[in-house]
Each structure stands twice: as structure tokens, then as C-alpha cells.
């Protein structure tokens, strides 16, 4: 039963996230570039409000999570194990940033905007999926 409930929660969380991206304007690469392009002459600070609002609400969630022995519908939390700031983190984030600033799309908005059927969005998501698979096949950390 927990499995079905988890699916429903994942679907609902995805829908809230997707609606939030549309409402916030972050589904629009033009708005994102309006923030990232600091020399455009018409800088748009929207992204700071989005990130600020998101962190503001996520922090109480994290504080609640830290008081819980396990999540409501699972036997344990699945949190990122790594804490070290290594070269993969920094180089990877820099590569991601270059792509983000290139077209104005990061993974969430790009996937969400797929449902609007724009060819360039499809191209971006397809290239992103290829990049992910390429990395995992060729560049992933070897478990030695």
C-alpha cells in the first residue's frame, strides 16, 4: 500500500513543482536569462524571489525531517551521502552553469515545458538526456 501512496505523493509533488515553475515564470528561459544576463540593461531579479521563497518554505520541512526517525511512507530517508567539496562537484556545476546560461533552461523547467510541445524544448531535453547517459557511461566515478 505504501508503494501506491508514494506514487501518488510523487505525482502530487511533481504537479505542485510544475505549477510553481509556471507561476513563478521560471519555466520561461527568457526570464531566467533576464536574471543571468547582467549586462542586458534590463536586469530581472525574479529568480532571487523564486529561490528565496523556495528555501523559505523548504527550511521548515528540513527542520521537521530532522526530528523524524523515518519519512511518513518509507523506512528511511534517502539523502545524498556526500559532504566533501571535490573537483567533480565544482567542474560539474561549472559545466551545468554554462549550459544553463547558454539557453536559459535548467532540468526542471525544461522537462515541465515539454508538455507545451515546442520543438526547441524537445531538442534541449533530448540533448540533456543524452548528456546524462553519456556522463553515466563514460565519466561516472568508478567504484573501485
Amino acid at each position: 500500500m505504501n508503494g501506491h501512496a508514494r506514487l501518488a505523493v510523487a505525482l502530487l509533488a511533481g504537479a505542485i513543482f510544475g505549477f510553481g515553475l509556471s507561476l513563478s515564470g521560471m519555466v520561461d528561459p527568457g526570464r531566467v536569462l533576464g536574471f543571468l544576463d547582467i549586462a542586458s540593461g534590463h536586469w530581472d531579479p525574479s529568480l532571487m524571489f523564486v529561490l528565496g521563497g523556495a528555501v523559505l518554505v523548504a527550511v521548515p520541512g528540513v527542520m521537521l525531517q530532522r526530528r523524524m526517525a523515518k519519512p511518513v511512507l518509507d523506512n528511511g530517508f534517502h539523502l545524498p551521502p556526500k559532504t566533501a567539496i571535490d573537483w567533480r562537484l565544482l567542474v560539474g556545476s561549472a559545466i551545468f552553469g554554462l549550459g544553463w546560461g547558454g539557453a536559459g533552461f535548467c532540468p526542471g523547467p525544461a522537462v515541465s515545458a515539454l508538455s507545451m510541445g515546442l520543438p526547441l524544448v524537445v531538442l534541449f531535453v533530448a540533448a540533456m538526456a543524452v548528456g546524462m547517459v553519456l556522463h553515466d557511461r563514460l565519466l561516472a566515478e568508478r567504484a573501485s
Partner: protein
Amino acid sequence: MTVYLPSLIGGMLLGLSAAMLLVVNGRIAGISGILGRLLGGRQVWTNAAFLLGLLAGPLLYGAAFGRWPNVTIVASWPVVLVSGLLVGIGTRMGSGCTSGHGILGLARFSKRSLAATATFLVAGIAAATIMGAVR
């Protein structure tokens, strides 16, 4: 100030979604991780369910406001293609994107995510500003 209200409320919804997935399912709402795991064939159903919800976002917006959200793409298709590849490779190598590191990581006060977020913000600003200048 009110022009930024939809952005603030939309952002709060992103935080709500992330908090919900964390507290109820015990998972991080990081879109690149969710998509990457799906492509790698791991936890297929829950990851697919989240992405299905994500796809419904613009449709729900359309139902609520009677129009599609704006999506303006100023980049040419070769730039879109290369950017997509970079985003795919970079988010996997750096273990996250604007959602996982940017929202959840910062909310968890993770130094690792703060370093990642600062790095992709600086790289993003550099790329967007240079591309904006040559356009």
C-alpha cells in the same frame, strides 16, 4: 514589488513540493537526479510519477489562468543543443542542479550544495552575459 509576487508564491510552491517529498517519501526533489535515475532504470515508477506531475504544471497553469505560461527561447538551435548536452553532463557530474543543490541543498545548509550553487550561478551569469553580448 507586486510584480515579483507570482515569483515569490511560485517559489514557495517549489519549496512546499520539496518539503513534501522529503517528509513523506524521504526523497530529495532534485530534478536532474530524478531524471538521471529514471534514465538509469532506477526507482522508475516514483520518478516517472514525479516527472508526469511536472509535465502537468503548464497545463494546470493554463486551466487556472486561461493561457499558457510564457516560454521565450532566444537561443538558436545549435546553442540549445550544446546547452542541453552541457546541462546533462554537468548536472550528473556535479550531482545536482538548481532544485537539488539550489533549493534542498541550501535549505539543508549543505556546504557542498552552497559551493555547487555559487559555482553554477557564476558560470551561468558568465555564459548568459557573454551570449547576450554576442546576440
